[in-house]
């Protein structure tokens, strides 16, 4: 029925394959670097899951597809601005932030629209009802992308210069391969996460979010506009997913309609592993899942990585549903 869906081993066609003359330690370090960059993207997506779950206890199944559309939308913005190849240094400081902002804004609005249309009418319904609509929305988004871009993987232009840092900047002859792209991923993801942390802990809206997540009724009684807070949550979550989409595109130079489902499930696993509802947990979980999937690709087999990630998800949900950093009250009966 959809056999082509997951024939690629891990997430995305992976850039890097081990040099044939690497020591065991070099392989481990290299795969850990890969894991870190993967994990940074997972973490950005996981934050969107965890924020929404924290506030309305919904597994926003469509969130991974917002990330996928973030990749396609960022590509559309680049195309619109006439970018099709490597950016000049000047463009890197002007165009790239602009596209980042535009993409984040687009996916943020998309996420808000999804909430308004598909989840908000079901706020007072059973808990499973919005989960089912979320699955429906996920299917719709995937198929919009499928019809927009076709079933084949699309090439994302190699807009960010890739420089072998150790070799060319430091003159170190090493089998380990660290590029400017790796740095880009971390350099983009970390400020976004710090910004989110600041937003949640230091601003009025962030305070409203935390209050609503703890107790919606009480927050309402204290004069917090709960619906607006939920809207902001979806907005911020969508923006982060869009950023993750852009980063993914620039790093892997490939995109496909089903990648959101894949990445979404891994990111959700990351959120659960970290403790759903906990922002720092999502960041930590994302990095951990990044490491685990990279190591699994290397030491077991990329073919089994998906099964391993899901096995982790199941084990965590069953034995430690509050995750590594979450509080124990997450799953309310």
């Amino acid at each position: 029925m959809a056999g082509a869906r997951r024939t690629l081993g891990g997430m995305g066609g992976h850039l890097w394959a081990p040099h044939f003359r690497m020591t065991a330690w070099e392989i481990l370090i290299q795969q850990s670097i890969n894991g870190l960059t993967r994990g940074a993207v997972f973490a950005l997506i996981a934050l969107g899951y965890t924020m929404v779950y924290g506030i309305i206890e919904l597994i926003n199944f469509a969130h991974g597809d917002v990330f996928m559309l973030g990749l396609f939308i960022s590509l559309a913005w680049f195309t619109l601005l006439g970018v099709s190849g490597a950016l000049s240094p000047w463009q890197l400081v002007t165009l790239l932030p602009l596209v980042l902002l535009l993409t984040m804004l687009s996916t943020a609005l998309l996420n808000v629209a999804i909430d308004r249309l598909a989840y908000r009418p079901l706020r007072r319904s059973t808990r499973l009802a919005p989960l089912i609509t979320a699955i429906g929305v996920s299917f719709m988004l995937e198929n919009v992308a499928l019809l927009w871009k076709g079933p084949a993987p699309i090439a994302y232009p190699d807009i960010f210069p890739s420089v072998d840092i150790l070799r060319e900047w430091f003159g170190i002859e090493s089998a380990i391969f660290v590029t400017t792209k790796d740095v880009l991923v971390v350099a983009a993801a970390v400020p976004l996460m710090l910004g989110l942390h600041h937003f949640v802990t230091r601003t009025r809206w962030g305070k409203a979010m935390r209050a609503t997540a703890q107790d919606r009724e009480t927050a309402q009684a204290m004069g917090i506009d709960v619906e607006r807070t939920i809207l902001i949550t979806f907005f911020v979550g969508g923006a982060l997913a869009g950023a993750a989409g852009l980063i993914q595109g620039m790093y892997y130079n490939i995109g496909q309609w089903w990648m959101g489902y894949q990445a979404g499930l891994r990111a959700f696993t990351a959120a659960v592993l970290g403790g759903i509802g906990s922002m720092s947990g999502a960041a930590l979980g994302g990095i951990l899942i990044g490491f685990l999937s990279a190591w699994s690709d290397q030491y077991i087999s990329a073919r089994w990585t998906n099964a391993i990630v899901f096995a982790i998800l199941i084990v965590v949900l069953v034995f430690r549903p509050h995750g590594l950093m979450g509080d124990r009250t997450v799953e309310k009966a």
Partner: protein
Amino acid sequence: MSVRRHLGAASLVLLLLVYPFADAALGLQTVHAVSDGMIYVLLALGLNIVVGYAGLLDLGYAAFFAIGAYAMGLLNSPVLGSPFYGHAWSFWLCIWIAAAVSALLGAVIGAPTLRVRGDYLAIITLGFGEIIPVAIRNLGDVTVEITGWRPVERLNLTGGENGVNPVGRPYLPGVPFETDPIPWYFLILVIGAASLWAMNRLRDSRLGRAWMAIREDETAADCTGVNPVSTKLLAFALGASFSGFAGSVYAAKLQAITPGAFEFQVSIMLLCMVVLGGAGSLRGVVLGAMLITVFDRVILAQTTFLVRGIGRTLGVPALVALDLTLWRWFFFGLGLVLVMLLRPQGLAGRRVQPVVDAEDDTAPIVPEPSAPPRIDVVPAWLRAAPGREAALLDVRGVTRHFGGVVALNHVDLRVPGGAIVGLIGPNGAGKTTFFNVVTGLVRPDEGRLEFAGRSLLRLRPNAIVGRGIARTFQSIRLFAHMSVLDNVLVGEHCRLDAGVGGAVLRPARVIAEERRARERARELLHFVGLLGKSDELARNLPYGDQRRLEIARALATEPRLLLLDEPTAGMNPRETEALTGLIGLLRRDLALSILLIEHDMEVVMAISDRISVLDYGTLIAEGTPAEIQRHPRVIEAYLGTGYEAELAARGAPR
């Protein structure tokens, strides 16, 4: 009416029997497609047991479909290459093995989900739904290498990405399964009809009620004597066994299986069928499955054809190039969203239609006066059951911490046989926690719990119900979308013993048991004054009646000790009076011991033999009502210093 229904059923059967021959005569060649559609109907029906009856959202049901198909494929394929191959067993044997293997794996997969609920459970099933196809793909070529040593090399267990091909057909002398689609049609029709028949009987059985009780409120079901573990496992196993049948027929009919046929989308399509038709309604699920199959196979293709024709005549190239079949998953997604938004109960809705609209919780319910409980209708079976004489609850030194909070601190409490003991104290004093400890919902950190001389420690709540302790809840926890009568019947669950076989085959013993259970339930409803409302949904009862129904449900478990958690909370004086009368009746006429949490001091003081007072988890006083009213610590902690004066000053009740 009934003649018309029979006529309708008869014509439906006739239509199903004649259809393939008419199709052959007219040369339509649709029998293959219809048979495939019927396989999906069967799958949807199996999923309905899990989702519709037991209320467990399963997002990985296609995994069981895969397991059924692969069980058939591996056992009934002449292809060599794997240790499983080469012994093409008979289809008629394999189909049972497939169902059994699916059921077993259903229970295995269900087991870890028992600890979690709701959306977490859904995600776990999704995880299994993902793992199974990955495993099937990868087990086609297994090489294990441990530092150069290869104990297993290129072992093909499942056929990998290429799947299993060919798969053997069923063999019946003189029946052309090889060439003719009609035998397949009848084979699937027979399996489908038998499944529907079995499911229909399961739904109206002790087991079906237990599933629905779990769906409505798992904790309440547990405290009413339904074992949620075995009940849920049974739902997973039975649901999976139907997909085992469907999968094995699918494999044999298609003659080949590949892992791609069992992906996540299939699970979601099946979920669409169940949700669209109406989870829990057999007719709805069949309808939903047929609608979606027709939509998928016929309407999309035909509409594409039509739109292209229009495009050609109008000269619009975009329309000519349109292929709506590419949009099928989009439409399934849209369908899920629209059904949930517009008609969450599905096209056919639930079997018992809610009288009050489901979304309209705020609608004022006009409290119709129900008959008060009556002494002359105390059910004889409840009164006279032998071996049910009152027993002693003896609690010693029970302690329970929640984090740093001591909810219960070395609490001792005795409920002598036939006594009414009141448990009072300020809010948060640990009264409900105490109930939860006695009923097994909360494990004590230390202490002893004995009932009728036997320890209750480490028993599941449903087992404690079996010992003869029943409870009600502070915030009423009825099975809201079940009828009043069914609520009471769930209470009888632990006193009945029809299993799956009994529920489906209905031997005379089970029929008699069921009849007796219904009689008893009606007597109980008569006793609490709700007989006229036995077919209403529990959620539509006025508040006071809901309290009484909860008590009737607890009584149906044939308890020797009844725990009532604030039974008069939120009641008006008339309802309170009726309920107080009922509690008195229970003790006097049924020799029931009662432990009562109550804030209405008049009620407590009037009916309790003894009263225990909790404050901050510690028992601060114990004694007769008169002693408690004068106890200085109780007055300080709970009653208030003005209480005695106030009590004296207040002449009339409230």
